[in-house]
């Protein structure tokens, strides 16, 4: 009798390990993606009636650019955007919510936005954090990114496309990575950056892995198009 109980407890503990490193992420990942898809579909339905803003065409290269739409400041624990990263799969869609608290954002399988960093498209740094393991592990594949990979932020207004630039490994207190110019807090902001942070090594809290990107373009939803960055294929 006692033996059977102990054996059962042993199996339950081993199953926890399997859940923590594998099964749980599969379950969380699927629900999280489905949630994001639903929100994206909602935005597509309620497409803004306002006409598309005037693009600026470069006479030399014939490329059309739009001024990025301003995003209102976000609230703690409230999803307001969706992140898509083709390198992590064409079905990779995860919600971004305000704040980086575990109970209100990260442990709800979302990507968290450091509230004291900029909003997408703004001059300065748009800082994000997410789990590298557990709770759907949105940033599990951060080290797989290659230079130039699109990092697409979808909001109700449209798509903000950033391009991945480089990775860095830092101590957990390296707050400078979130500075307007990453790692250079004394430099005046001029460019638009994105910074992704997560734990490193996997299952550890001793260091942080940091991915940087630079702003590429904005595509308003009112144009009725989707950004080429999502479909162009990877190098």
């Amino acid at each position, binding site marked *: *009798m006692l033996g059977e109980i102990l054996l059962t407890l042993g199996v339950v503990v081993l199953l926890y390990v399997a859940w923590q490193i594998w099964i*749980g992420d599969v379950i969380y990942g699927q629900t999280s993606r489905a949630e994001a898809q639903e929100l994206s579909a909602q935005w597509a339905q309620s497409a803004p009636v306002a006409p598309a803003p005037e693009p600026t065409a470069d006479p030399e290269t014939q490329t059309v650019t739009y001024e990025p739409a301003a995003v209102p400041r976000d609230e703690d624990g409230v999803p307001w955007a969706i992140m898509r990263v083709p390198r992590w799969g064409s079905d990779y869609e995860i919600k971004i919510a305000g704040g980086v608290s575990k109970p209100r954002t990260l442990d709800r399988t979302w990507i968290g936005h450091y509230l004291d960093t900029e909003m997408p498209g703004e001059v300065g740094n748009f800082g994000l954090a997410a789990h590298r393991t557990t709770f759907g592990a949105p940033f599990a594949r951060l080290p797989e990114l290659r230079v130039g990979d699109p990092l697409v932020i979808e909001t109700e207004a449209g798509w903000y496309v950033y391009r991945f630039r480089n990775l860095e490994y830092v101590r957990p207190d390296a*707050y400078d990575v979130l500075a307007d110019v990453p790692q250079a807090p004394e430099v005046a902001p001029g460019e638009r950056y994105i910074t992704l942070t997560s734990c490193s090594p996997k299952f550890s809290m001793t260091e942080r892995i940091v991915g940087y990107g630079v702003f590429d373009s904005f595509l308003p939803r009112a144009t009725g198009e989707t950004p080429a960055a999502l479909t162009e294929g990877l190098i």
Partner: protein
Amino acid sequence: MYAALWRILPGPWFVKLLIVLALVAAALYGLFMYVYPWIATTFVPDGGTIQ
């Protein structure tokens, strides 16, 4: 414990087996969807943030 459970279950052996499989599935569902997430949010530290 498990021998007693097997005896209590009604029907021939294959019916018992079906019931046992259903019970196991229910237990796994409860663990994966409720118990383990609760443990992970309550006891396991895992910070991906810079502070």
